[in-house]
């Protein structure tokens, strides 16, 4: 879903896509030509992300408004409620994951870490909140340690109740499950990282697999926008 939407975004943002050929004829001869030009368009828009003047987001901007305003999750080790929104003039990256996740979670966390490295001083205005979907195993001691491997500035959020986790997930349209089968714990979770502004609105989403350079592009665009509107 998110990947498709992301692809669509690239195409929309590029005027050189010969849309008319779609309506003229869809014979087999045109199919490869069309896909070639779509590929070129995608390539061009990806190339643009290396540019300092890029203004286009490479993540996936939700089509309907999503907000986590007013939603809180218990932060550890302090035990205080943390509201899922950024500080003024900053962005907050919200990620649902768990520490016994050797593949998906660290891939995204390392990409975020490297994206922050790429944007210099702007990185000071990027905050990270990781919400564990596996609070039974990810305790107040474990989660902060885990996230500290990826960032010095973070919020380790361990839902105190199932209702707290579900409320946070519902705000983002996310979901997860933890089930025990034959003594093994199986965790299903979403791979998306949500970029939230200081009102709690989701302004961008990083689907799983988005590379650090693309994330850096988006963080730069979003943070520059926030500087300009101030």
């Amino acid at each position: 879903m998110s990947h498709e939407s992301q692809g669509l975004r690239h195409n929309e943002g590029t005027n050189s896509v010969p849309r008319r050929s779609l309506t003229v004829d869809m014979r087999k001869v045109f199919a490869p030509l069309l896909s070639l030009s779509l590929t070129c368009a995608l390539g061009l828009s990806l190339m643009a992300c290396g540019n300092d003047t890029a203004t286009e987001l490479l993540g996936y901007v939700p089509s309907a408004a999503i907000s986590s305003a007013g939603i809180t999750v218990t932060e550890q080790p302090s035990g205080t409620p943390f509201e899922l929104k950024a500080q003024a003039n900053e962005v907050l990256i919200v990620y649902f994951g768990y520490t016994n996740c050797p593949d998906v979670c660290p891939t995204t966390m390392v990409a975020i870490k490297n994206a922050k490295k790429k944007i210099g001083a702007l990185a000071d205005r990027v905050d990270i909140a990781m919400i564990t979907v596996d609070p039974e195993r990810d305790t107040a001691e474990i989660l902060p340690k885990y996230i500290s491997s990826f960032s010095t500035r973070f919020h380790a959020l361990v839902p105190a109740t199932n209702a707290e986790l579900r409320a946070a997930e519902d705000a983002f349209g996310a979901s997860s499950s933890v089930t025990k089968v034959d003594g093994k714990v199986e965790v299903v979770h979403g791979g998306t990282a949500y970029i939230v502004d200081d009102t709690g609105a989701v302004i961008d989403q990083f689907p799983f697999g988005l590379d650090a350079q693309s994330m850096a592009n988006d963080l730069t665009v979003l943070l520059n926008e926030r500087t300009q509107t101030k």
Partner: protein
Amino acid sequence: MKKTTKAFMVTALSIVSVSGLAACGSDTESVDTTVAAQSSMPATPKITVTGQWARQSPMATDMGATYLTINTDIDDELVGAMVDTSIAMMTQVHETVMGEGDSMKMQEVEKIDVVAGTPTELKPGGYHVMLMQLVKPLELGTEISVTLKFAKAGDVVVTVPVLEEAP
């Protein structure tokens, strides 16, 4: 097993090639002689592994993952993987599968088919060799030895550097 492993390590560095059908026997002498292809026979079928890396394990977790690309001259099956118990207590081949929306979960796979001439990638978000109950964290700059088990080619031992992300 241990001796064979050692001999393999000597004859190969980070990229390991193992002569499949003939070499997987038990005595160490045969390993040395089968490395060089004999002119009277067709080239020895080979499985080589490239691009291998293990992810630096974050603090507070005892799970690790190893990624690599399998290149093979023969159709074969990856049926398992192992590391020494001084590294991790359990090793499995896993796959991250996408569910509805952006949901993802990991599951153990029984085997991965590898096809002659087509590289098989184990990469983030797909297949990986999962190291469970790590004895100690996988630290940047170190290396681990991972044994891949193939149905036909037997064991292929790979020296895997610990990195933060794909090389």
